[in-house]
């Protein structure tokens, strides 16, 4: 029976011990892809879903119609946000390994997506993140110490100890509460955007998922509702090639690009070099203009690579070559923006090193401050009875009774 199976089973191009192989990846030349008017109909620009918008060339220079022509100061801010995101990740990975927090997820190699996109949007735009978009938090000016306190579930945790690490939110920062259930935020963002349109407001919603999550029904719900009601929303698929141990082919990404999923719904799909800060910024600004001018939703596929493990509970050396990231043809987003700034004469290796040290120090100092508000083992601690708060707006009788019982019986 098994020997006769004619079922197709997808495989990644390389497993541990194999030579990394990215020959499956369709990559356009920088500057090659046209930039249509934002009001163009989805079906009149289908090539955007199959090619790859790129602005930065290998020599660090820019080219083509998608160049957003950002001022060097803006690029320096973007570089700083990306480097701060990485410094934050490094510090948190280290403290997790020291047993100071239970869990962490790095976004190494994907910093350009979150940072460039946040910078291309307006502060009133509502962001519905997935769990690997900490660059959104950083670029929206959230303090590292606040993010760290969440990971520590301490007395300054914005979630009051109710969520595992990295599930941040910020009401004033317009950053929606992160869920551990994949893709749920996608159609929620569409609903938020629908409400914005219903109220006659200009704010848009943007949301993120990974390649693997496109298989969830909520992905298709989001695209259907976004298309039907022409919601002002930017739907992002961060295709980092890996969903824990499963290669993106298990979500069907190697047959047709994820960006092309939009076309079946009449939603424009754009595939972009996710490690090219300028390209990500440009397509996001384009999609935002579409949304704000009533031209509807856009699906953006960011082609990038998950350079780190899925999480601190994962060991990628068991399912992919250890040196895959070094062979990744789209490079490192921080290195690429750095080279561009150096080439412009607006940055230097020396400045870069100095900034790296400064941010590393900032992350360490933030951590030192964060632990003064409590750790998993040392006080001050949250009052456990707060778990009964916020289940409902007003606490019902049965929860009051259970809270009393818990307090009477003690916590151990």
């Amino acid at each position, binding site marked *: 029976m098994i020997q006769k199976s004619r079922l197709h089973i997808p495989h990644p191009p390389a497993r541990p011990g194999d030579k990394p192989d990215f020959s499956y990846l369709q990559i356009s030349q920088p500057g090659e892809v046209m930039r249509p008017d934002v009001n163009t109909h989805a079906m009149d620009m289908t090539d955007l879903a199959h090619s790859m918008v790129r602005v930065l060339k290998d020599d660090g220079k820019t080219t083509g119609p998608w160049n957003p022509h950002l001022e060097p100061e803006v690029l320096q801010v973007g570089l700083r946000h990306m480097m701060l995101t990485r410094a934050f990740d490094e510090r948190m990975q280290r403290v997790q390994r020291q047993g100071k927090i239970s869990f962490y997820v790095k976004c190494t190699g994907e910093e350009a997506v979150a940072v460039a996109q946040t910078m291309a949007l307006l502060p009133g735009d509502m962001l519905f993140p997935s769990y690997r978009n900490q660059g959104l938090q950083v670029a929206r000016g959230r303090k590292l110490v606040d993010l760290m306190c969440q990971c520590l579930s301490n007395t300054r945790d914005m979630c009051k100890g109710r969520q595992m690490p990295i599930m941040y939110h910020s009401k004033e920062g317009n950053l929606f509460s992160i869920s551990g259930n994949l893709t749920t935020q996608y159609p*929620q963002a569409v609903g938020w955007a629908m409400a914005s349109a219903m109220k006659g407001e200009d704010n848009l919603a943007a949301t993120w998922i990974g390649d693997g999550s496109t298989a969830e029904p909520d992905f298709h719900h989001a695209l259907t509702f976004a298309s039907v009601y022409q919601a002002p929303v930017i739907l992002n698929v961060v295709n980092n090639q890996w969903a824990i141990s499963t290669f993106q082919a298990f979500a069907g990404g190697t047959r047709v690009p994820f960006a092309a999923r939009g076309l079946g719904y009449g939603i424009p799909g754009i595939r972009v070099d996710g490690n090219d800060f300028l390209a990500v910024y440009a397509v996001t600004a384009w999609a935002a203009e579409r949304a704000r001018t009533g031209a509807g939703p856009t699906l953006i596929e960011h082609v990038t690579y998950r350079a780190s493990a899925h999480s601190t509970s994962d060991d990628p050396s068991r399912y992919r070559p250890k040196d895959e990231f070094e062979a990744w043809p789209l490079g490192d987003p921080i290195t690429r923006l750095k080279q561009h700034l150096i080439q412009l004469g607006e940055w230097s290796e020396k400045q870069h090193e100095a900034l790296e040290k400064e941010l590393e120090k900032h992350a360490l100092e933030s951590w030192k401050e964060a632990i003064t508000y409590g750790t998993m083992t040392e006080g001050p601690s949250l009052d456990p009875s707060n778990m009964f708060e916020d*289940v409902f*707006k007003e606490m019902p009788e049965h929860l009051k009774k259970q809270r009393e019982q818990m307090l009477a019986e003690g916590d151990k």
Partner: protein
Amino acid sequence: MAQMNMIQALNSAMDIALSKDPTVVLMGEDIGYFGGVFRCTEGLQRKHGEHRVLDAPIAEGGIVATAIGMGVNGLRPVVEIQFADYIYPAFDQIVSELARLRHRSAGDFYAPITIRTPCGGGIRGGQTHSQSPEGIFTHVSGIKVVMPSNPYDAKGMLLSAIEDDDPVVFFEPKRIYNGPFDGDPDKPARPWSTHAKGEVPEGHYTVPIGKAEIVRPGNAATIITYGTMVHVAEAAAEKSGIDAEIIDVRSMAPLDVATLRASVQKTGRCVIVHEATRFGGYGAELSATVQEECFWHLEAPIQRVTGWDTPYPHAFEWEYFPGQKRIINALRAVLEA
């Protein structure tokens, strides 16, 4: 006061909510231009506009998810899931998102949504149009679960649900949309105009969530029930001549424990009746609550009268449906013990 059936009462509640609060919006399959397959939203799109009464794609998960997003963005959505049997595709969004959003964000985000959904059997709907899944939702912390049994409560409770800042799953027993049903399918249909609770104020009023109602006072035994079964239980008590007190739970979560406790401590005997299947069902929670609260007052083991633990059968509906006879047998059992 006006004579209304449950459909008209629900329609009136939504009409008032739409008129009173500009953030209220309705969304669901077939609810807009057509007015809903059960006609509950008839005329509302015409009156309030297609931007406030939205026809939705056939995607229950998408309907609830987008409603959450709208709720977070300052709207107060009232969504219709066409049949409770169709609610499962939205289960993840209800359980993992809607119910927990306020808690997980420490009160910073919440979505004040009402999910209306017709439930229950007695309409030859077979296993995909007759289910009573309320017990699946009462198990979830963070949502309120209610089921009215008459037009007066339907309107007042729906207005309470819409005005509530917490999510409410609002079950509508569709067998009694047009009139009370006593469990005897051979009798001619009775309209709500023959029932006191078919008298409904035309204006705004609320019936609070979290309060049960004694619909028939008595001393010999307590019947705890809700929805269509309230009327079946009343007919059973009448027919048996037993002086049973009947409590309409109305609000399954939160539960009005005080009313249950007072009644069973008085009667010492308790029968729990619901249409839903028995094992792990809401009746088990009621039974456990009564046992915890009234153990030393109980004169007999608590009896449960429920749907059988099978899928809802099309051809054998009246063998499945907990009718008067089964309720009378249970009453006799608690009295004879």
